[in-house]
């Protein structure tokens, strides 16, 4: 197997590794860096569970090779969470609105919603639905998730939700 050197900044930390050319970014994060908060649902770009930030943009880490992230900055759910273990306002909104059950799709939703709110801080319901249309949830349903994103957006804007 062809091995390629790779240097990438993951959650603020510079990491240099040698990986097989065919290794996906998702497998690299999960298996090589033990960042298992990034989940694999469909492995072909449909479910969004593997969403991470690549230079700030939400991307599906199952559709990228690790070596394509060479020189880039990758942020995973671990990097969007507080090290002390508390919840960010977005994560707390998910809990308050019962926007998760099994949690498998949840980290992907949180990463997608994070990128979306950075771009669109005062979204309409329709914009939220559109932004999250690339993430699938099979147990909770979407009403709570949309409510959570809405609540996080209004909290960020200083108004009560």
């Amino acid at each position, binding site marked *: 197997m062809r091995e390629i050197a790779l240097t990438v900044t993951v959650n603020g930390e510079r990491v240099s590794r040698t990986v097989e050319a065919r290794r996906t970014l998702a497998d690299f994060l999960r298996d090589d860096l033990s960042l*298992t908060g990034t989940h694999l649902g469909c492995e072909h770009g449909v479910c969004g569970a593997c969403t991470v930030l690549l230079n700030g943009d939400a991307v599906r880490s199952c559709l990228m090779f690790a070596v394509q992230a060479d020189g880039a900055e990758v942020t*995973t759910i671990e990097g969007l969470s507080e090290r002390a273990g*508390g919840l960010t306002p977005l994560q707390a909104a*998910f809990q308050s609105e019962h926007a998760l059950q099994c*949690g498998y799709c949840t980290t992907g939703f949180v990463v997608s919603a994070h990128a979306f709110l950075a771009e669109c801080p005062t979204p309409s319901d329709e914009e939220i639905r559109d932004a999250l249309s690339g993430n699938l949830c099979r147990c909770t349903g979407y009403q709570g998730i949309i409510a959570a994103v809405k609540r996080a957006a209004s909290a960020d804007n200083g108004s009560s939700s």
Partner: protein
Amino acid sequence: MTAGRFMGQAVARTEDPRLLTGRGRYIADVVVGGASDAAFLRSEVARGRIVRLDAEAARSAPGVRAVYTAADLNPLVHDTSVAGLPDAPYPPKYCLAENDVRYMSATPSPSSSPRIATSPRTPSS
């Protein structure tokens, strides 16, 4: 149970914080020494007869530990049909599809494609 604690109010789930921060633990996150990954060949047709299965290329692909077909596994596994109505005809349901496939994504077993095979997990560094 104390009614005052649980009735009429939302009870915060204790699992939410870990699930929301990527610290949940799912079966794929559990590292067991010597564990292999399995891949299944799935039917690409809704209905068909299995005329021939050639698993040789899969068996000889690098890293492959084993390739199993219906002939290997079905004798070891009970019919997995969910019981239907009494005396209603119901086709047998096998662990791996045997003789025919009756829906898309039925798992006839490995074919000649190496992606079907099982291979050892790459050890994490």
